[in-house]
């Protein structure tokens, strides 16, 4: 049961490296706090999921690296080769000479179609190496041009070509005080397109991870490496093997296979007028929560609080919305660790902020000429705005 990872753009490739490194380090951690046999089953499962074996014994990451300019991929490949413990495939990258210039339209309309065949071929080769495919994990940022634009295009292609496989996009939400001036445009275009083709969007906000580094880890001079390592750590704790509920010894849980797409019942939903976002929420309302426990005492952990109906929207029973996976094998030397993956209103505020800023800029028509130059017209922007306002409204309505 394997996952093929697609790393897109500078962000995607920098993070991708840290993820594979974290997964490898954890799976080779000697202190699993469990029996030797269990540790070996864990290692084997992790290996099968994320790595394929090469002749000289060095595991090769099941990954495709894509960027429109060579510097970052070169760095990523050399970092992996240097570590000596695992590596990327020799022919797993696709690179061009000139980047996308932070232009979503360029990534989507120019680079996408131009390199569609080459990129899909690389992915196909990686898929063929898998005995059975769990799905795709696509790592990209929203703010730039390649990860965002080419990422949206590639996800659409994966939807067309592998419609039976699951696709999860790891999206990096940019810092609020810009990294890229047109990041809000790039973000809304990315999100609206991904909503139509991806199965799940796993979001990490740079601001939130930065705060973790500053407040929880007390790092003085925080670098992107620090941020990416925290991120990789979180992803590792979700993606590493866990038991299925049947309690068998097989690590079967498919992290991509969580049923993220939840739709409200067609009838019986109370109609509400447009609600203002300024209203105080008592609870962040969820439609799905997943808790993953690893290490000591997992079976005696008390999770009642997660089943409180107040946490969930009125048309869902907690038993349908809440899942827990437990594994005795510890993660990354932590005696006990817990991860929470949540589909809730938590992202409404950041999403609303981005849409608001993008709308404000759009009203002045600033930078639009850079997009229309490559075929993204004002109607495309309006379509994106409409879709995202609907998403925001849908999530807001959960509170009733």
């Amino acid at each position, binding site marked *: 049961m394997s996952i093929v990872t697609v790393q897109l753009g*500078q962000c995607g490739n*920098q993070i991708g490296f840290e993820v594979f490194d974290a997964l490898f380090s954890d799976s080779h951690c000697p202190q699993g706090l469990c029996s030797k046999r269990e540790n070996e089953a864990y290692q084997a499962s992790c290996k099968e999921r994320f790595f394929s074996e090469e002749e000289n014994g060095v595991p090769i990451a099941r990954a495709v690296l894509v960027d429109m*300019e*060579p*510097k*970052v991929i070169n*760095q990523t490949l050399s970092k992996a080769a240097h570590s000596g413990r695992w590596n990327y495939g020799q022919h797993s990258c696709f690179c061009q*000479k*000139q*980047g996308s*210039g*932070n*232009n979503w339209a360029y990534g989507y309309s120019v680079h996408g179609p131009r390199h569609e065949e080459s990129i899909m071929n690389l992915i196909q080769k990686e898929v063929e190496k898998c005995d059975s495919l769990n799905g795709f994990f696509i790592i990209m940022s929203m703010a730039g*041009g390649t990860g965002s634009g080419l990422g949206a295009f590639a996800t659409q292609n994966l939807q067309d070509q592998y419609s039976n496989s699951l696709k999860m996009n790891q999206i990096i939400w940019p*810092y*609020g*005080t*810009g*990294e*890229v*001036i*047109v990041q809000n445009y790039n973000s809304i275009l990315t999100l609206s397109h991904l909503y139509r083709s991806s199965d799940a969007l796993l979001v990490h906000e740079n601001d939130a991870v*930065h705060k973790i*580094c*500053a407040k929880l880890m007390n*790092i*003085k*001079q*925080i*670098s*992107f*490496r620090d*941020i990416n390592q925290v991120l990789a750590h979180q992803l590792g704790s979700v993606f590493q093997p866990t038991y299925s509920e049947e309690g068998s010894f097989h690590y079967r849980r498919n992290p991509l296979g969580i049923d993220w797409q939840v739709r409200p019942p067609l009838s019986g939903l109370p109609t509400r007028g*447009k609600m203002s976002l300024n209203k105080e929420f008592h609870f962040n309302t969820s439609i799905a929560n997943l808790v993953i426990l690893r290490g000591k005492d997992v079976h005696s952990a008390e999770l009642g609080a997660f089943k409180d109906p107040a946490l969930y929207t009125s048309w869902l029973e907690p038993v349908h919305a809440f899942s827990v996976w437990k594994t005795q094998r510890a993660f990354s030397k932590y005696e006990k660790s817990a991860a929470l993956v949540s589909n809730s209103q938590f992202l409404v505020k950041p999403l609303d902020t981005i*849409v*608001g*800023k993008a*709308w*404000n*800029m759009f*009203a*002045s*028509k*600033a*930078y639009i*000429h*850079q997009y229309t130059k490559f075929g993204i017209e004002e109607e495309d922007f309006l379509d994106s*705005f*409409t879709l995202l*306002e*609907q998403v925001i*409204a*849908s999530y807001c*309505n959960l509170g009733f």
Partner: protein
Amino acid sequence: MTQSVVLQVGQCGNQIGCCFWGLALREHAAVNQKAIYDEAISSFFRNVDTRVVGDGGSISKGKICSLKARAVLIDMEEGVVNEILQGPLRDVFDSKQLITDISGSGNNWAVGHKVFGSLYQEQILEKLRKSAEHCDCLQCFFIIHSMGGGTGSGLGTFLLKVLEDEFPEVYRFVTSIYPSGEDDVITSPYNSMLAMKELNEHADCVLPIDNQSLFDIISKIDLMVNSGKLGTAIKPKSLVTSSAGAFKKRQEKPFDAMNNIVANLLLNLTSSARFEGSLNMDLNEISMNLVPFPQLHYLVSSLTPLYTLADVNIPSRRLDQMFSDAFSKDHQLIRADPKHSLYLACALMVRGNVQISDLRRNIERLKPSLRFVSWNQEGWKTSLCSVPPVGHSHSLLALANNTCVKPTFIELRERFTRLYRKRAHLHHYLQIEGMEESCFTEALSSLSALIQEYNQLDATKSMPAEELPRLSVAV
């Protein structure tokens, strides 16, 4: 990795260009200790086997044999170019990539643009095509020239139209030296005005610089160096004005210090595209992020630090000071005060041992004192390049699209009008074939329209930000 070609036009353009190439070699020599021809070097240099006659000598990998600058040198007088070709950098330039004449343009834009433009159009195209052929993936033309003279101003801007027609996909970045108030060329307002129209219409991005600001920066450095206020010496290579370490036998000429500042500007501008970093910024991202409307493409630049002390001081205080300095009017390369005008967009290109938290801390600190346009309140574009410039542990280049350029343009218009009203020296221009009074009036209205755009933006400065109603959707 992409390549860029430098087009140095006129006396000023060539002198700055010469400094640029010396400092570029110095920078790459410091980074590339093993003398391997890598992608970073290839952005500005070709690797050539000089034993091969003709064109076939290009080597794409391996050890550096002989580096040739990706440059075309254009001047209608021979003096400056000849000096370069006899100087220490003579082997860096391809002797075939020059266009020279003997008579000069007589400080007359019309001679440079109309006469020499048509005379040398074919040759220019040929040299440009040759330099493009030598590039794997040509991304950008850097044009260096002055506005006040005849060749740089006239022929330099003629080039822009040629480039736009012949290489529409390649960016045109123009570094323009604007005349200062005490300029000794009487007709510089005419030349600058006529050149402005071309910059408005055919440049992707313009970095205006004026001699007075460069001079003020040098005076300040001299003061600091000589006043003995500093306990210990300044590292010589770290002076933004110095060529130390570039070439041993060069005598420093009066304008060298000023030209080195501009050369350093270009090096820092391209550093994140050439070298690695945790947040890269390519040249096409400059235009994408800093040009919200096609006509507003004038960027005010500032470089810090101007020098590094030889002894190591408190690192993080120096770092924060670097950010503060970048926004002070003393560090701007034209007479401008961005803090008291309106920002449309701002880019911070950091080099060296600086991390994202340092960058964010300083943005948060400085933001409250800066005014951004209502539709771009957080209009920051940032980049982190790991390789610092020679002699420094870190440096910052700030590029601002800010209404503070307006006074430069207004002053230019005033000086122009004063001359034009009296029709002084006009006959020198009108007697050139292709020149008519309409050239002047059109240039004037082009500049006035630009000033008006900035005025409109400034008018919004004091207005509260309008909250536009969002789309309302049915669920």
